[in-house]
Structure formats: C-alpha cells, structure tokens
C-alpha cells in the first residue's frame, strides 16, 4: 500500500515539476504597473505656453488603439522623475497609449540583453553603444527611418555627430536622447591662490599646462586631474588632428604622430607632476577631486553640474571651453539614444513614444530642468546653467567627434587607456606603448 502511494506521489511530483518547467517558458512577465502618476503641475502649466510646440501637440504617428508599451532606462531618482514627466506630456498628445515605465537603475545592459534573449524586453528602451552592438546587427532593434519619415522627423534635426552611434548600414536604429561633452572645469580659488589668471576660452593646451605647473608649484592644490583614460585623452588627440581609428573603424590609428605627440604632452605633464591621477589624490574620479578642492582643473562633462549640486553645493566652480589644440579645437561627445524593440506588439505606439521623447517639444522641457542637453542644435540656447553652457558649446565645434569606433569600441578604448597607464608607470616609452596599443586595436577591430 505504502509503496503504491509513493509511486503515485512521485508521479504527481514529476507531472507538477514538468508542468511548472514548461509553464515558465511561455508565461508573460507579471509587470506590476508602477504608474504613480504624480502629475507635475509646474510642467503642465508651462507646456501650453510654448509657442514652438504647437506642431507637436498631436500624436506624431497614428498609433494602435489601446496600445500598452513598456519603457525602460537606467538613471537615478532625478532621471526617473524627468521621464515620468515626459510620459505625462506624451499622454496628453497620444491619449490612446499607456506607457508602463520600468526603470532599471543598475546593470541595465546586462539585464536588457537577458530580457531580449528571453523575449521579455521592454518595447522602448535606452540604447548605448554596447546595446547598439548587441541588438542592431542581430535584428532586435526596429529601423526607425520609415516611421521618422511618416512623423516628419529628419536625421538632420539632430546634432549630426550624435547619430554616428545609432546608424548601421545607413539605417537609424535609435534617436539620441541626450548628450554631453567635456569642458575645462576649474576651481577659481586655486587660481587666486597661485596668483594667476583664470582659464579663458582662448586657452590652448600649453596655457593649461603652464597654469597647472604654477598651481602645482604653489602646492596648495594639484594642477590638472586626469586618469589614464581614453575619454579624457580624446580631446587632446582630436584637437591635434588625430583619431583613435580610421573612419570606417577597420584599423586603429594609434601609432600616428598626432596621437603620440599628445601622449608625450600628457606624459610630460604627469612626470613634472602638473597632472595627477584621481587615485593619486584619493578621489574616485576627478569631479570628486574638484568637489573636495584637491585639484585646480580637470576635464568633465554635464554630469558635473548635478553631482556638484548634490554633493558639494557650497563649492564654487567654473567651466571654460575645451582648450585649443595645435590644429583645431575639438571635443569628444558621449550620447545615448532611445530605441524600439523590433518585436514589439505595438510598433507605431512604441515608435511614436521614442520620437516624442527625442523630439523638440520634449527635449525643450528636459533641457529646462538642467538635467541634460537637447539633441537638437537649435535648442542649445535653452541651456540655463552657465557651466553647462560652457561645456555644451564644444559639442557644436565642427571637428568634435562622438566616442564611437564601431562594435569593438570598448576594446579600442581599453587599449588606449592601458597604453597611457603603461607610459605613466614608466613601463614603456610612448612609442612602445602606442605601438602595442595599435597592435591590440588592429586585432580587436578585425573582430578577433
């Protein structure tokens, strides 16, 4: 009797387990609607007054009835609030679409790749160079060119450099949602202390170096803060007429004189101690070093403004335009976009939302909050903060380039950072280090 019961019991267990295992593959994610819908009265009242946004007051596309789309992005509370407000504005013009905002503040890229493979990815989401690499060539992102044409949106509406990342084989897979570039961030009191003039927009890299030397010699503050970091090194290289890779990202250009001259320049600064790494002065990044008043100058971007407001609100700091190089003045741009899942149930609603988020009307509202710069060149004047203005100005320079060198971008970047690190360590000469970086870049860009 007992053994029979056991057999029946075990068979039941098998059946239950199999059913649950099978069920998992098909059940939809139980997405608890996190709509807290805290309507912002401030935003709501300002919107109708905007004369320029009359054209955008209708839904950009004819959307599916009763569409519900899920939208995900990273970001802290501030960023989440900005997108909650954006969703409210979108609802006002496309009332037929329900947007379920599901922010993923941490490990966004990892999570999204897993969701995409499992078929549970959001309909609309942030796209950076990593996700662009993973999704665009594998057909997971919707090409937006047709819907853009339908909505009357042109690629020319955006700052041209920004679309570099989101374009593959001539098709647009995401629209830039915001961007930043680097400015010469400085601590005025350090210049007063050393008795020298504050940075001006006419400065060259040599002027910067002279000032850093003087301040370092005084000893109260370190001169110029920069890690062995490809991103901070990029403006040096671009302004010297160089680049990290050729224009079709098939070969590195790291052993060219344009790159090596500037590597020598920063190495000399490092050796004469007018350049310090953040770790040398116990900061986790150079912005923190400014906030803690450890250093006089550094290169940072738009994120400085909010970070300083949050952590070091009593510190007075300023920004000057990125210094001029020997060939030109150029900066590096970082940008992220909004993309649409190729297998969304409601392609028109999802595309309408992506187009609205990155469109003039919404970007104009976001830029007013001081959170991010508009991706539309004609809205650059809407930037309120004086430091933001100085940083953003470099974004429109003709030789400014976006930090993107194809699918193997981060490997290339890693090679540059490591080369600088080896040179500063005294391990290798500039020639040796950048010859090695070039070899690594060649291997990486060839796709291993």
């Amino acid at each position: 009797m007992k053994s029979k019961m056991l057999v029946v019991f075990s068979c039941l267990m098998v059946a239950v387990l199999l059913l649950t295992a099978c069920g998992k593959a098909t059940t939809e994610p139980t997405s608890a609607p996190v709509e807290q819908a805290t309507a912002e009265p401030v935003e709501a009242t300002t919107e109708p007054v905007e004369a320029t946004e009359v054209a955008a007051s209708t839904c950009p596309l004819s959307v599916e009835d009763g569409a519900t789309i899920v939208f995900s992005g990273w970001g802290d509370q501030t960023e989440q609030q900005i997108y909650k407000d954006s969703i409210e504005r979108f609802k006002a013009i496309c009332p037929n679409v329900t947007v379920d905002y599901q922010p993923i503040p941490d490990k966004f890229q990892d999570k999204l790749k897993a969701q995409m493979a499992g078929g549970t990815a959001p309909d609309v989401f942030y796209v950076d160079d990593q996700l662009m690499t993973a999704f665009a060539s594998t057909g997971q992102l919707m090409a937006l060119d047709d819907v853009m044409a339908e909505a009357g949106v042109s690629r020319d509406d955006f700052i041209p450099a920004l679309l570099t990342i989101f374009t593959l084989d001539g098709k647009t897979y995401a629209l830039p949602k915001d961007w930043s570039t680097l400015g010469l961030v400085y601590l005025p009191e350090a210049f007063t202390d050393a008795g020298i003039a504050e940075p001006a927009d006419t400065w060259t890299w040599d002027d910067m170096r002279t000032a850093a030397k003087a301040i370092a010699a005084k000893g109260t503050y370190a001169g110029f803060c920069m890690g062995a970091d490809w991103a901070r090194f990029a403006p040096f290289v671009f302004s010297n007429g160089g680049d990290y890779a050729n224009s079709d990202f098939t070969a590195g250009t790291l052993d060219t004189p344009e790159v090596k001259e500037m590597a020598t320049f920063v190495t000399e600064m490092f050796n004469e101690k007018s350049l310090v790494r953040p770790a040398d002065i116990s900061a986790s990044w150079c912005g923190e070093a400014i906030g803690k008043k450890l250093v006089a100058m550094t290169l940072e971007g738009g994120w400085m403004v909010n970070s300083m407001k949050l952590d070091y609100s009593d510190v007075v700091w300023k920004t000057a335009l990125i210094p001029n190089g020997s060939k030109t003045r150029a900066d590096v741009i970082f940008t992220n976009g909004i993309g649409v899942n190729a297998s969304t149930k409601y392609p028109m609603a999802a595309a309408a939302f992506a187009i609205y988020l990155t469109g003039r009307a919404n970007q104009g509202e976001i830029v007013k909050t001081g959170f991010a710069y508009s991706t539309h060149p004609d809205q650059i004047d809407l930037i309120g903060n004086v430091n933001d203005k100085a940083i953003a100005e470099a974004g429109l320079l003709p030789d400014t380039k976006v930090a993107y060198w194809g699918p193997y971008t981060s490997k290339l970047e890693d090679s540059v950072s490591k080369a600088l690190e080896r040179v500063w360590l005294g391990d290798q000469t500039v020639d040796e280090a950048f010859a090695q970086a070039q070899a690594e870049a060649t291997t990486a860009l060839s796709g291993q």
Partner: protein
Amino acid sequence: MEHKNLKPGKSKSVAAGIMIFLVVVITIMLVAFMNAPTRGGAQVMASAQTYFAEVKQTALPFLVVVGLGAVILGVLAGITVYRVWPNQKKRNTLLTAYAFLTPYLLITCIFTIGVILFAFYISFTHYDIFTEPTWVGLNNYKLAFKGFTDSTQKDFVQSLHNVFWYTLLVVPIQTTLAIGMAVLLNTGVRLKNFFRTIFYAPSVTSSVVITLIFVWLYLKSGFVNNIMTNLLTPLGLNFQSVNWLGDPRGLFQLFGFTIKSSEWYLRGPSIAWMAIMVQNIFTTAPTFMIMFLAALQDINPVLYEAAAIDGANGWQQFTKITLPLLRPIILLVIVLGTIGTLQVFDQVYLATQGGPLGTSLTPVYLIYREAMGAQGPINMGYAASLAFILALIIFVFTFIQRRVLEHGTEQY
C-alpha cells in the same frame, strides 16, 4: 503452477521496464527541448509554436545527439527495473529511492545537466544569443590559448596566470591561518566564544560588503597607508603611500628586478592583486577555521594524555597527533580553497574590474565579460569554451590533490 505464475509476472516486468524507459526518454527529451540551442529574442519566444518551429529549424542535430544518450540511459533504467520487478522488496526499495530522488533529479536535469550540455554544444559555435549559432569547431578553444603566440590576445592566458598565483598564495596561507586559529580557540583560552564570534564575523558578512569596505581601506589616503606610515616612519623607513588597488607593479619588480612590459608573466602577482588576496584570506580563513574546530573536537583527548605521559611536549603533540588526525579535513579545505580561488569573481568585479593593466583579470571575470558582451559583441560560444577549460583545470587540480593528500589518510 509455477509456470503459469511466472508468465503474468514476466509480462508485468516487461511493461514496467518499458514504462520506465519511456519516462526516462521523454523526460530527458523534454529537458533537452527546453534547453535547445536556438535563437533567442521575442519573435522566437512569443509562443510555444514559434519556439517549436525554431527548435525544428536550428536544434535538430542537438536533439538527435541528446536523444541517443536518452535512449541508452532509458534502456539501462528499463533493464534495471525489469530485473528488479519480480522481487517485491527490491522493487519497493528502488521505487522509494527514486521517488525521493525525482524532484532533485528533475531540477538537476533542467538547470544543471541540460544547461551544461547546452553550453558544451555552443562552446563549438559562434553564438550571440540572438542569431543562430554557427559551428566553428575548435576555434574558440584555439582562440583561448592564442595569447601564447599573439600578445594582443593575451587576456585568457593572463587571467590563468593571475589565478594560478592567486591559488598558490591564498590556499596555503588561509589553510595555515585557519588551523592556527582553530588550535588557539581549542586550547581553552578565556573568552573563547567571544574570539570565535570575532574571528568568524568576516565569513558571515557578505563578500560584497567586505570588498566595498576594503576598497576604502586601500585608498591612497586610506587606513592601510595610514597605519603603514605611522608604523614604518618611526622605524626610520621611508614609506610612500601606495594606491593599493590601482598599482600594477609585480611582486618581483618590488625586489628591484627590472622586467620589461612584454615579459609581464615574469613579474609575479601585482600589488593590486595581492591586496585582493589579503582581503580574500581575511574573509575565507574563518570559514575553514570552523571546519578545523569541529574536527579538533573529534580528536580523542586520551591520545594527548598518553602522549603527555610519554613525555611529548606541546609542539610534538601538535605535529604528531593533531596534524595527522586533521589530514582528511586539510584535504577538504585545500580542495575547497583551490576550487574557490580558481573561480574568484566578486572581489574583482567590485574592486578592480580586472585592472590595473589586466593584473587582476580572472577567468570567471573574463567569461562574464565575453558572455555579456561588455567589450564588443556578445560571444557566448567563446565564453562557454573558457568555462569548460576552467572546469577541466579545476578537475585536474582536484584530482592531483586527492591523489597526493588522500594517500595515507586511511591509516588513522
């Protein structure tokens, strides 16, 4: 009479055998079906039909191979049941045992064995988790070791080099430390429970928390540098603050050897890497201390008494009685320690991300990087091949350790 009774009994056995054969084969095939190496993505995962069509299109060879294995296993299971069936006692034992094992077996089949088979298959393919895996033969395995000849692709070779140093230094030190602490706590010192709690605290704390605390301690203006300066300066030594987690200088370079960057493998573990080792020893040693403590309680006190009467001093008692009797536990601790150190990941992920200059890159971190496509397109096939190489290395290490250490433990 006998003849008549046998026949229905036999047909019952045959039926049971066939039933078991079917259950085994169907279960395995279902598991294989759910783990089939297909394209991912929403189109495929939309419904059961789309997934089935996708499996039919891309994973038939995989299913055929697994099916062969399933048939063999099913036949074996069927024969076993057929033989056992006429004997009621044996039958009941067998069925009861497997009834209890079934839930575990199913979960293992689905989430371990199925996944391992899948990973083994894709380690021979190029697979970006969205498009069909394409067969590349042994290319992934070749690529892993290409670093020996091509210095631009040395990531995996460097990660192995790092992790060998890690194992070589961490395992002996943490084992010795654990034995030392256990023996101290076993001598009946006062406040024994207090010390036990204090020693054990790092092990129960999450390694994430400890790593974050150590990141602060290791800052250039952090506690470690502060202590070193205050201790060494009075002794007349000039101590320069070190950026512990960011310093790629190797151990042998610190002794004044000049080693070229291209000969990185001669430099020994970097300062950053050794800083992580210290932290790992701090967290893991107490866990093993508890094991040794338990083993020490098992040693018969009569042995010590007899030894004392024979005139053995404390050290002799320790080396001649305690250590030999701890040998099985020492083996266990060393094996567990080796496996743990070869798989080190969280400290690296949180503290250094493989830097500086790749001196803290470990195989598991590299597997994560390749599998998640953190530096370029997702390369799940390459990541899977690295995982199998690492598993093989761990297997070989464990095997050797068992051979060397287990030899002779039986006599006690």
